[in-house]
C-alpha cells in the first residue's frame, strides 16, 4: 500500500484525444486527480496530447507532455522524469491499457514506480473476461455466461451452444468497440471478424435483451471501508450500450430490497477484486424476478463515474486519487458540506437524467440503429424534482431542435412499430408519436421493453399536452394548468405552441407572452442546492439547479452587480467540445481573479466548467433563452459572457440583448452583423475585402444561373432546419441535382446557400482578441490540407510554416479592418482562403473558436484571459511576444471515430466529422506531425503500404512521398491508375485490384483482410458520389480492420515525410515548459 510520505512525484496518464467512448469525462477526472495531488504538495507530471483540455492548462499539472499515451512514449517519460508513482485510472481505457502493457513489460518494476490505487492485477482481473468470471465465481456472483474464443470456428461453436441471439464483445476494448448482437450465424461471421481485428480474444454471450440495466459507483479504501455513491437505472433496457442509453439516477423502479441486494453484491465484488479507489459495476436485472447478472466492472473512473459525481455532488475522481495515496474515506472532508467526511452514501432529493447526444446525420451512410456499441458523441444531464421535468429539460439540452417530449415539429416515422422496436437516436420521439396516436402503454412496452413506469410518466406529459391543446388562447390558460405544465417540464415555448399562440405571434413573442403571464401569476422556478445529504445537514453548496416542483429558493441573491455569468457550451458534439470547456473555465478563472463572483450555466456532466469548485455558483441547467433569463433575473449580474461557449451562447446574444441584458464584450448587434450572411457580405464589399462568390437561392433556375457564372465545383449548404443534411461539394450538374433532391426541396422558405469552391487553396485561421476594434493579440495558423476539409477536421500548424510573408501581412491587414468595422471587443476568429497571395474571407465568428486553446498553449499567451479582461473593461497590456518569436511548431491533428460508426464512409469533406483533436509540439513540423499522428492512433507502418492517390494533381503531390517510401524499403501496393503513374515515374510497386475488378488478383480487400497491409492511403479524386463509392469498401475495411488510413494527399505526404526522415527513437522527450 502506498505510503504518502514516500511519494513526491506522480505521473498521471490522460486519455488523449476525445473519441466516441472516451470523451471529456476524463478531462474532468484527471483535473480532479491533479487537484488532489496538488493539495498534498506532490509534484505532478501529466502525459496527454489533448491540448484543448483543462488538465493540460498552466497551473494544473507541474509538467505536461503533449505526447501519445502509448507504452513507448510513457516509458520514455518515466525514464526521464523518474516519478515515484503512477495513476492509471484517470485516463479512461487508453491509460488503463497502456498501464497494463507497461506493467506486463516490467517497466514499473524497472524504474521502481508504484501504481497507486487499484493494482494492475486487479485491473487485469476485471478486463479479461475469463479471469473476471472466474474471480466472481469464487464469491458466488452471477455473471453472463460467456465463451472466450480466439478463432472464428470456436466463435460459431460457442454461439450454437448458447443459442441465438448472442452478443459479441472484444476483450480490452473501450465502450463496447467491436461488439454487437447477432441473430444468426451469418451476422456472427461478419461481426466476429471485425471484433478479431481489435482484439485477439472475443466473447460470445447469451443475449439478455430486455433486462433492466442498473449501475452503481463503488468507492473502497485500503481499510476495506466501502460505500455505494450512486445508483443509476437505464431507461433503455439491456441491449443498448450504457453510453447510448438515457440514464436516470437514482434507480426508479427497484424496491429497497432489490437495491440492497445489488449493493451488497457490488461491495462484495469490489472487495474481492481489490479495488482501492473507485469502480463502476453494471448489472443486468430481470424485470420479472430478482435474477441478476454482473455485466462488467470498470476498475477506473469512467463516463458513469463522471455522471455520478455530477449527479450526487460526490467528487469521485478527487476522492479516488486521495484513496490511492493511502487515505481512508473518513479522513477526507466532504467538499460540499465542509463539515462531514467523505465516508457517506449520498442521498439525493431530486431526479437526474442523462441523455446522449448523437450526431449521426454528420456521417455518410452510417448505421443509425443503436446497440451494444457506442455512437453518441456527448451527453447532457438534467436535474429536477419529477421525471417529467428532467426528461423534458434533458431533451431540450441536447440542442437538436427539439423542445421537449412533445410540441416538436412532426417527425414522421414511416413504420412506427419498427421505430419503437429497433432503437435509433430518434426513438424517444417515436414514443411520443405512439402515445399521441393512441398506442397503449402495453403495446409500446412490448415493442420497446422500456419499463412501463417510464412510459406512464411520459404519458403524463402527452396528457398535459392534450389539456393544453384544448385551451383556446392565452386568456383561457388557468394558473393550475400552467403550473402543472411547468412542473412537468414544459418550456414557455411548448406551452405557447400547445395553446396556439406561437402560430399567431411567432415563437419569440409567444415565449415572452407566456413568460409575462407566468410572472403575473407567480408561477416561477426555484433554485435548489445539490448538497449530497438530502438536506440533512446545512451546506454551503454552490451547486444549483432550478425546478418548478418547489416553493422556495435555497440561496439568497446579492443583487450587488458583482457577479458575472459565463454561459457554457452544452453537450459535446461534432464541432463543439472540450475546447469550449477550456475557454469557459479560463473565462471563469479570470472573472474570479479580477474580483467578481463567477457564475456558470451549463448542462454537460463531462466538463470541468461544471465542477462546482471552479465557480462561485454553478447552475447545472438549460442554456435556453428561458432558463438563462430566469438566472439573470435572479442574479442581476454585472454582465454576461456569451463568447466563450461556442455557438449556443453566441446564438442567444441578440435575444438577451432584446431583454436589455448587459452582454460583455462585442455588442449583440455587431455579433449579428457577423452572423447574418447578407449583412456580413455587404460589409466586406464596403471595406473592399474579397470573399468567395456566394448566393442564397430559392429555385433550381437561380442555382443554375449562379453556377453558370462561377462554374463548378460549388459548395452547397441546404436548409438545416428542414433536412438536417450535411453540406456538400458538387462538381457537376448531375451531382448537384441529386444532392439537392436528397437534401430537400429548394423553396422560398428553405433556400440553399451556394458558393464557389476554390480548389487547391490554402486555408488560414486568424484567432485574435480585439479591444474596441483594435487587435491586441492574435495567432495565425495554417491548414496542412487544402481548403475543402472542414477546419475542425484539418491538421493545423502554428506558427505557419509555409505561408508567404505577404500572405500573412494581408491577413493581418484584413483582420484589422474587420475588427474595426465590427467594433470587436473580445475573442474572434476569421477563416481565410489563400491562393498565391489572393486572400478571401470564408467566415468570421465573434467568439472564441475551436483553436483558441491550441494557439494559446503553443504561444503561451492565454487569449481567453486577455479577452475576458477586455470584456470586463480592465486595462490589458498588449503581449510583447508574437508568433514570430516561437521557435518550435505546434501541430493540431484530428481524431476520428469512424471505427464506432458502422458503415460510415471515413472520408473528410466540408462537413466536420472528427470527434476530437490533439496538439503536439516539436522542434520542427516533422517531429510535431509524427507525435500528433501517433497520438490520434496512427502507427508507423511496418512494411506494406496500399496507395490509391486520387486525381492527377494529387498523384503528383504524393510522388515524392511514394519515392521516399520506396527508398526506405517499404513495399508499395497500388490500385490501377496509381500503380501506372508510380511505375511511369520509376517507383516500384505491385498493382492490386479494386473490389469492382472482380476475378483479378491480388484483391486489395483480400490483402486487408489477411492483415498484409500496414497502412492505407486512399484519396478520393473528388467528393462526388461515384468516386466515393469506388473507394468506400477499401476505406471502410481499413477502419473496420483497424489499419491506419489517410484520405488526404497533403496530410499523407506530411506524415510519410515525417516517419521516413525521422526515427521515432530520436524524438526528444520534451515537456511543454521545455519548448522556449
Amino acid at each position, binding site marked *: 500500500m502506498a505510503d504518502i510520505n514516500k511519494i513526491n512525484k506522480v505521473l498521471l496518464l490522460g486519455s488523449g484525444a476525445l473519441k466516441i467512448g472516451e470523451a471529456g469525462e476524463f478531462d474532468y477526472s484527471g483535473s480532479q486527480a491533479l487537484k488532489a495531488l496538488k493539495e498534498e504538495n506532490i509534484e505532478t507530471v501529466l502525459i496527454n496530447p489533448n491540448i484543448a483540455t483543462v488538465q493540460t492548462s498552466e497551473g494544473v499539472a507541474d509538467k505536461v507532455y503533449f505526447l501519445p499515451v502509448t507504452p513507448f512514449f510513457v516509458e520514455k517519460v518515466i525514464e526521464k522524469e523518474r516519478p515515484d508513482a503512477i495513476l492509471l485510472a484517470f485516463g479512461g481505457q487508453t491509460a488503463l491499457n497502456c498501464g497494463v502493457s507497461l506493467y506486463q513489460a516490467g517497466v514499473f518494476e524497472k524504474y521502481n514506480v508504484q501504481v497507486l490505487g487499484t493494482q494492475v492485477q486487479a485491473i487485469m482481473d476485471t478486463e479479461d473476461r475469463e479471469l473476471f468470471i472466474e474471480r466472481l465465481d469464487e464469491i458466488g456472483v452471477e455473471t453472463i455466461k460467456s465463451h472466450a474464443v480466439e478463432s472464428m470456428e470456436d466463435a460459431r461453436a460457442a454461439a450454437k451452444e448458447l443459442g441465438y441471439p448472442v452478443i459479441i464483445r472484444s476483450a480490452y476494448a473501450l465502450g463496447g468497440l467491436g461488439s454487437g448482437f447477432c441473430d444468426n450465424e451469418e451476422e456472427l461471421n461478419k461481426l466476429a471478424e471485425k471484433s478479431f481485428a481489435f482484439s485477439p480474444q472475443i466473447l460470445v454471450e447469451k443475449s439478455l435483451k430486455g433486462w433492466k440495466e442498473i449501475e452503481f459507483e463503488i468507492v473502497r479504501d485500503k481499510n476495506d471501508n466501502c460505500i455505494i455513491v450512486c445508483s443509476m437505472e437505464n431507461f433503455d433496457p439491456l441491449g443498448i450500450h450504457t453510453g447510448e442509453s438515457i440514464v436516470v439516477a437514482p434507480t426508479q*423502479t427497484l424496491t429497497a430490497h432489490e437495491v440492497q441486494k445489488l449493493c451488497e453484491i457490488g461491495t462484495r465484488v469490489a472487495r474481492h477484486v481489490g479495488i482501492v479507489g473507485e469502480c463502476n459495476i453494471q448489472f443486468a436485472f430481470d424485470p420479472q424476478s430478482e435474477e441478476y447478472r454482473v455485466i462488467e466492472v470498470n476498475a477506473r473512473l469512467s463516463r458513469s463515474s463522471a455522471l455520478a459525481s455530477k449527479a450526487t455532488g460526490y467528487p469521485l475522481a478527487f476522492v479516488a486519487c486521495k484513496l490511492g495515496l493511502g487515505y481512508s474515506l473518513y479522513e477526507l472532508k466532504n467538499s460540499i458540506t465542509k463539515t*462531514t467526511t467523505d465516508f457517506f*452514501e449520498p*442521498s439525493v432529493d*431530486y431526479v437526474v437524467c442523462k441523455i446522449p447526444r448523437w450526431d449521426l446525420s454528420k456521417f455518410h451512410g452510417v448505421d443509425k440503429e443503436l446497440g451494444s456499441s457506442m455512437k453518441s458523441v456527448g451527453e447532457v444531464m438534467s436535474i429536477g424534482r419529477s421525471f417529467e421535468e428532467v426528461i423534458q429539460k434533458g431533451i431540450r439540452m441536447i440542442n437538436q431542435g427539439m423542445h421537449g417530449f412533445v410540441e416538436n415539429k412532426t417527425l414522421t416515422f414511416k413504420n412506427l412499430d419498427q421505430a419503437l422496436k429497433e432503437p435509433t437516436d430518434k426513438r424517444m420521439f417515436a414514443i411520443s408519436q405512439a402515445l399521441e396516436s393512441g398506442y397503449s402503454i402495453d403495446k409500446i412496452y412490448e415493442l420497446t421493453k422500456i419499463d412501463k413506469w417510464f412510459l406512464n*410518466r411520459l404519458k403524463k406529459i402527452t396528457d398535459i399536452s392534450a389539456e393544453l391543446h384544448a385551451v383556446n388562447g392565452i386568456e383561457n390558460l388557468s394558473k393550475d394548468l400552467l403550473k402543472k405544465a411547468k412542473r412537468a417540464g414544459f418550456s414557455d415555448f411548448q406551452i405557447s405552441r400547445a395553446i396556439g399562440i406561437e402560430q399567431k405571434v411567432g415563437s419569440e413573442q409567444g415565449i415572452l407572452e407566456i413568460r409575462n403571464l407566468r410572472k403575473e401569476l407567480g408561477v416561477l422556478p426555484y433554485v435548489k442546492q445539490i448538497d449530497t445529504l*438530502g438536506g*440533512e*445537514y446545512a451546506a454551503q453548496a454552490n451547486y444549483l439547479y432550478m425546478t418548478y416542483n418547489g416553493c422556495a429558493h435555497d440561496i439568497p441573491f446579492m443583487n450587488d452587480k458583482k457577479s458575472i455569468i459565463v454561459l457554457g457550451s452544452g453537450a459535446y458534439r461534432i464541432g463543439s467540445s472540450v475546447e469550449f470547456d477550456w475557454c469557459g473555465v479560463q473565462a471563469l478563472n479570470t472573472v474570479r481573479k479580477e474580483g467578481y463572483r463567477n457564475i456558470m450555466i451549463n448542462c454537460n456532466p463531462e466538463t470541468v466548467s461544471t465542477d462546482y469548485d471552479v465557480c462561485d455558483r454553478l447552475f447545472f441547467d438549460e442554456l435556453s433563452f428561458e432558463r438563462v433569463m430566469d438566472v439573470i433575473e435572479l442574479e442581476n449580474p454585472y454582465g454576461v459572457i456569451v463568447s466563450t461557449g461556442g455557438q449556443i451562447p453566441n446564438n442567444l446574444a441578440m435575444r438577451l440583448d432584446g431583454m436589455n441584458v448587459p452582454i460583455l464584450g462585442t455588442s449583440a448587434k455587431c455579433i449579428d452583423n457577423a452572423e447574418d450572411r447578407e449583412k456580413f457580405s455587404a460589409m466586406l464589399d464596403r471595406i473592399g475585402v474579397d470573399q468567395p462568390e456566394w448566393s442564397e437561392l430559392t429555385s433550381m433556375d437561380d442555382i443554375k444561373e449562379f453556377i453558370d457564372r462561377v462554374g463548378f465545383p460549388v459548395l452547397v449548404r441546404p436548409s438545416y432546419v428542414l433536412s438536417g443534411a450535411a453540406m456538400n461539394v458538387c462538381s457537376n450538374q448531375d451531382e448537384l441535382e441529386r444532392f439537392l433532391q436528397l437534401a430537400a426541396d429548394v423553396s422560398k422558405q428553405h433556400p440553399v446557400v451556394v458558393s464557389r469552391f476554390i480548389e487547391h487553396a490554402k486555408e488560414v485561421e486568424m484567432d485574435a482578441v480585439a479591444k474596441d476594434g483594435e487587435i491586441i493579440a492574435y495567432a495565425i495558423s495554417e491548414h496542412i490540407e487544402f481548403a475543402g476539409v472542414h477546419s475542425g477536421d484539418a491538421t493545423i500548424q502554428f506558427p505557419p510554416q509555409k505561408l508567404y510573408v505577404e500572405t500573412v501581412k494581408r491577413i493581418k491587414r484584413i483582420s484589422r479592418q474587420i475588427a474595426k468595422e465590427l467594433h470587436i471587443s473580445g475573442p474572434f476568429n476569421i477563416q481565410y482562403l489563400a491562393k498565391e497571395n489572393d486572400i478571401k474571407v470564408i467566415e468570421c465568428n465573434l467568439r472564441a473558436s475551436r483553436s483558441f486553446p491550441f494557439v494559446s498553449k503553443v504561444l503561451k499567451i492565454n487569449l481567453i484571459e486577455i479577452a475576458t479582461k477586455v470584456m470586463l473593461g480592465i486595462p490589458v497590456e498588449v503581449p510583447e511576444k508574437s508568433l514570430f518569436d516561437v521557435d518550435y511548431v505546434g501541430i493540431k491533428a484530428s481524431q476520428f471515430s469512424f471505427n464506432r460508426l458502422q458503415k460510415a464512409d471515413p472520408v473528410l469533406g466540408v462537413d466536420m466529422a472528427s470527434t476530437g483533436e490533439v496538439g503536439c509540439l516539436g522542434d520542427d513540423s516533422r517531429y510535431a506531425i509524427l507525435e500528433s499522428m501517433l497520438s490520434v492512433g496512427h502507427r508507423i507502418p511496418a512494411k506494406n503500404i496500399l496507395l490509391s492517390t486520387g486525381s492527377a494533381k494529387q498523384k503528383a503531390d504524393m510522388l515524392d512521398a511514394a519515392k521516399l517510401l520506396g527508398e526506405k524499403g517499404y513495399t508499395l501496393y497500388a490500385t490501377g491508375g496509381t500503380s501506372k503513374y508510380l511505375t511511369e515515374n520509376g517507383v516500384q510497386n505491385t498493382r492490386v485490384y479494386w473490389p469492382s475488378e472482380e476475378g483479378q488478383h491480388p484483391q486489395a480487400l483480400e490483402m486487408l483482410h489477411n492483415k498484409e497491409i500496414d497502412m492505407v492511403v486512399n484519396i478520393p479524386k473528388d467528393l462526388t458520389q461515384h468516386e466515393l463509392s469506388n473507394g468506400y469498401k477499401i476505406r471502410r475495411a481499413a477502419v473496420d480492420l483497424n489499419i491506419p488510413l489517410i484520405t488526404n494527399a497533403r496530410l499523407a505526404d506530411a506524415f510519410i515525410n515525417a516517419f521516413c526522415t525521422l526515427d521515432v527513437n530520436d524524438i526528444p522527450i520534451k515537456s511543454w515548459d521545455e519548448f522556449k
Partner: protein
Amino acid sequence: MKVSLILADGTCFEGEAFGYQQPTSGELVFNTSMTGYPELMTDPSSDGQLLVMTYPVIGNYGVQPMEKDEYGLVTNAESDHIHVNALIVSDYSEYYSHWNAKESLEDWMIREKVVGISGIDTRELSKHIRLHGCMAARVVFEDMPKPAEYSYTNLISKVSCTEPITYQPGKEKTVVVLDCGIRASVLRCLLQQDVTVVRVPWNYDFTSMDYDGLFISNGPGNPSYCGETIAIIQKAMADKSEKPVLGIDMGCLLLGLAAGMDTYKLKFGHHTHNQPVQLAGTDRCYITTQNHNYAIREESIVGHWKVYMKNLHDGSVEGIYHTRKPWVGTMFHSESDVIDTDVSFIYDDFISKL
C-alpha cells in the same frame, strides 16, 4: 383535494391529498432514504410520525404482497400495518410498475386509513425541520374538523406485543427479545441464527425464565417513558450469570439508561439509510440505517462502559459496550434480513457469546 400541513410553529405547507382522507396529527420527521417506503411506513419505530420523504418521487414500485413467512412474520414490510400517521411527498407516482407489486401505495393507504400529501416542497419542509428541530404538525382538510394536537405518549406500549410469543422452540440456545416495537427484519435476523426466540412485551418480567441472552429491540419515541422496561433490564443485568445483552436502536438507549447513562433528544433525529458510523479507535466505518430521535450523552458513559461507535456526521454516540461483561448496544439495526451487510456482525457477535 387540497390539504394543509400546519406545523406547531405555525408554518403552513399546502398540497394535494392522496390515500385515505382524514385529518390527523403527529410528529414531523424527514427521512432521506430514496427507496423503501413500505418498510419505513410499517416500521414500528415510525409510529406516530408524519413521515416526509426527501426523495421527491414516491410510489414507483407500488406495494409488494405482505404475507406471513415460515415464522409467521410479515414479508415485504416491517410489521403488519402502517405505523406512520401520514406520508408527505413531493410527487406521488399514481402509476406503479413492479413484477411483484400487489397494489398501489395509495390503495394500500386507503385500506389502512392513512393519509398522504403530495405536491409539497419536501426539501423546503425538511430544511425547516432541520433548522427548527422535529416538531408536531397537523394535517388539515378544508371541510373536515381540525385534528387534535399531537400528544407525545409512551408509543412503545402501543406497538409492543401483548403476550409472549415463542419462535422455533427447542433450539439449543434461547434468546429473549424485549419487544419495544421490533421490526420483522430484525426478528428474522435472530431467527436465522438457529436459536429459540421468546418475544416478550415491553414491560414483561422475563428474568425468571430460562434463557441464554437478552435482545432489546428497536422502538418508537422517547425512552424515558419506559421506566418499567429499564427496571426489568436492570434486574436482568444484576443476575450473576452475566448473560449477553444486545440492544439496538431504542434497545441501546434503554440499555444505556439501565446502566445509568443519560439520553437526549437529537435536533431532528437520525432517520436515514446512510448514517456513517465508525468503530471507535479503528479505521473501520459502516453505513447504517437508523430511525430514531434520541441519543446517549457521551459524558454519561463512565466506568466499565465505553463508546463502541460514533457517528461520522455529528459525532454522536452510535454504540456502547461493557469492557468486562458481554453487553453491547448499537444505535442502528441491520438494513435487511436476507442480505449480509457490513453490520451483520453485531448479531453474529451476540449469538457467539450465548
